[in-house]
């Protein structure tokens, strides 16, 4: 998807908030075509995606994945429905529960709250991308050892969140864990195990400093 009209900073996103505000004032019907179109609004040229399906390219787990989705499709929906990457789960529908957590440019993000078109050009990592074949990462193995999952539905989100949290906080204390992993909900009640995983994997615990 090439678009010379966009400023470099907008290179990989679909719409800025400013663009959106302008478009919402447009009354003319937007033609149903593939790819972005350019409309004039408020004296500027604005790139508009949709309303029909448009081609997208996502960089997921080191692979370029191509599909056609409507601009309103979220990253989570694209991962799950277009690419059958179903580890990230759809639970709360509104960026509360963390079950859809993936890494976007190395940062944990609720995939239900990002549009697929906005995620283009960014490096996306899902739980599927953390391992190859039947292997487990040390964090995953710790989840198994500490029985930090029951039904398992929230687990992939917690794996991403915990993995990233421990990278950022290698000396996490129990209090850090309480705060750092509170963006994910579990219903079966596996927090005790997850806390044990985070403690066991933090250097603070290992050195006896926690």
């Amino acid at each position: 998807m090439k678009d010379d009209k966009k400023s470099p900073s907008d290179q990989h996103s679909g719409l800025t908030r400013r663009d959106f505000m302008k478009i919402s004032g447009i009354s003319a019907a937007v033609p149903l075509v593939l790819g972005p179109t350019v409309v004039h609004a408020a004296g500027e040229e604005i790139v508009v995606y949709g309303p029909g399906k448009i081609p997208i390219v996502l960089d997921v787990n080191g692979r370029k994945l191509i599909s056609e989705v409507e601009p309103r499709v979220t990253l989570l929906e694209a991962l799950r429905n277009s690419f059958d990457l179903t580890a990230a789960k759809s639970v709360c529908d509104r960026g509360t529960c963390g079950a859809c957590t993936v890494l976007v440019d190395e940062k944990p993000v609720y995939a239900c709250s990002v549009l697929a078109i906005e995620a283009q050009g960014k490096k996306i990592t899902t739980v599927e991308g953390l391992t190859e074949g039947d292997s487990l990462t040390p964090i995953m193995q710790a989840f198994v050892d500490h029985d930090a999952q029951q039904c398992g539905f929230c687990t992939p989100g917690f794996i991403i969140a915990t993995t990233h949290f421990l990278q950022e906080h290698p000396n996490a204390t129990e209090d850090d864990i309480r705060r750092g992993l509170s963006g994910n909900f579990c219903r079966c009640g596996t927090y005790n195990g997850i806390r044990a995983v985070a403690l066991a994997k933090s250097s603070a615990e290992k050195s006896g400093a926690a």
Partner: protein
Amino acid sequence: MSEYTWPNPETRPLLGKRISRVDGPVKVSGRAKYTFDYNPDGLLAGRILRCPHAHARITSIDTSAAEKMSGVKAVQIIQKPGTEVFWAGDEVVAVAAVDECTAEDALRAIKVQYEVLPHFVSDTEPPQNITASNGPISQDDFEDMEDNQVPDEQVVAAIKHQGISFHPDAKYLKELQESGADASVVQALRTAKYALPSGSKSPYKKTAVQTQGEPDKAFASAAATVEGLYGASAITHCCLESHGMAAEWTTDKDLLVHISTQNLSGIAPQIAEPAGIPAGNIQVMQQYIGGGFGSKFSPDRWGIASVQLSKTAGGKPVKIMLDRAAELEVAGMRPSAFARVKIAADNDGKLVAWESRSWGTGGMGGGGTPPLPYIFEIPNQRKQNVAISTNQGSARAWRAPNHPQAAAITMCAMEDLAAKLNLDPVEMLTRNLDLTGPREKIYRDELPIAAEMMEWKQNWHPRGDKTSGPVKRGLGMSIHTWGGRGHNSDCDLTIHPDGSVEIKMATQDLGTGARTIIIIVAADTLGIPMDNVKLLIGDSRYPISGASGGSTTSGGVTSSTRRAAVDARNQLFAKVAPALKAQPEDLEAVNATIRVRSDPSRTLSWKDACSRLGAMPMTVRGKNPDKSKPPDLTNSGVGGVQMADVSVDTETGIVRVNKMVAVQDCGLVVDVKTAESQVIGALIMGISYALYEEKILDPVTGRMLNPNMDFYRLAGIADIGELKVHMMTGKGYDERGVIGLSEPPVVSPGAAISNAVANAIGVRVPFLPLTPARVLEALESGRQV
């Protein structure tokens, strides 16, 4: 000792040890596929249009615009014009489209008109004078009175006074007399005035007063009496994987179903009739389920809709998963239960009398009657319950139905009475354990263990933390029970000539560890590593196994697996005995070998032994129950004790759980690790409903105000405090057999936490959840006991 009996601790390499769940790796790596993840080629997205009114009549439905939309493949009217809809969120129309966006657009294009009718969603205390509105006694009411052993003179008086709304014929009266009903009651029915069923739409249904002993006399002579208000608000199940199903017609007579269910073997019979095909033509699949907690036993109306949509769409797979709002509003609910309680004890703290007027709602159906008083058979009782019918999606079984509410009502009243008597509640409870029936000894074993884990003696103080500062700390406790006998379960265990073992069973693993314990039992019995056993579940074509409800799965699946494995082992012994120059009964299966018990040097490797089966594998069927293969390997009735340590900020009303301990019995523990996880999970779920969860309905619109996970708040990792579990094992426990564990530990947390809060702040916060507003209100009113 019968050969099917669970092995002794010395001869069980795996059973009763700490073993990681076998499906852990597939779950942590995101490879586990749930119904929500089912994504075959050509999948159509199904969506449901729901009624926005709490009570309405559908006057017209226009789906024409939706049907014309490009990408819409099927539209199905679920409730036709003219139908009365009784709760907000009820299903009206279903659509299937090429993708979710199109399906959502189609819903918006459907026009439904309603005649809005009056609704009622309040479960506040019913008015006192509601008997009159109940009108004549229905057959149900009458049989309720008989079942509840209402004194004959009360029944006779009620029949005379109110009349009856049914026609008891001679046969009915004769059967009644034969079943032991008093002649005066039969005579009263015979001569009763018939009246039309009450036309009034009272939402209240009052049970007859149940009396036992002489409550008035007992209260009059009691040393201490406490009166109070207790209870728990309605909550929802909030399964993280919402309810849903995918249906596809593989031929015009065969249906393939993927469904998120606790009842894999029981789904096809519920779909056959609406699908119009024999149940045997329906294959039901589910590998992983993202939570059920009692809410997922049926295909539900959306599941049936997916079958019909798929048919219209030429058999293409149609998947309908509920969105979060629907999941919370209509797909799960635990009834509310509240009560005004009067409880009395003698000078020694022995309970002598109980009186309760309870009420609650479970949606349109009314509500369950909590078993009051909980656990304690108080000699003198009087109780009455009012079920309130409200315009909301009906209650579903929620982990230990009615027990958490009954525990909150009973254990809190008892603790208030202990406070009045200046007794340590552990002491008071101990003095009354003779009233707990068959589980008295279990509680007697468990109480001191729990007390020690909590350091109760050092940390407990009389009611009201007298230390300075706004944050008050307190301890509380509760006990609980549950049945948990194993359900009916069949399995096929196959030994292949190459030594591999395979078990097939149409059961499900809700995350409880069912897969793990089945494999543990098989591998332990056959003396082989767990890796050697392949377990196939989640397909209705395997042998039938019961629904996972009421904590019945562990006992059921382990019992049938044990019997199958013992039979398979014995058949293998018979095959290889000649080669080992021994009698089959002298052989044992240990460490992946078959060997002679008296001379272990005469041995065959497991693989070698299996190769002697010949060219064909050997399959045996295991069953539970199976009277031909005693003993009973499962049992019913567990006991548990829980204690909570909380801090309450009296300025903000915020309650924090510092620590909880749980001591739990479940007979023979198959896997200590997953059993402990189950109990810890229950404590966390308990903290969640004790402090945060409440299904809040708007009296004006009749709609749920918090159908989302921001405002229907679950406990998070920051809310749980320190959690300690002790599983009862060994003599007195192991020989009882395997008993289910899912329900019991979720019963006590609400009561234990409420008691700890009362102990901390010196006043009772009547209802769960113990929100800051409720805590501050209780502090404000300063209701001292």
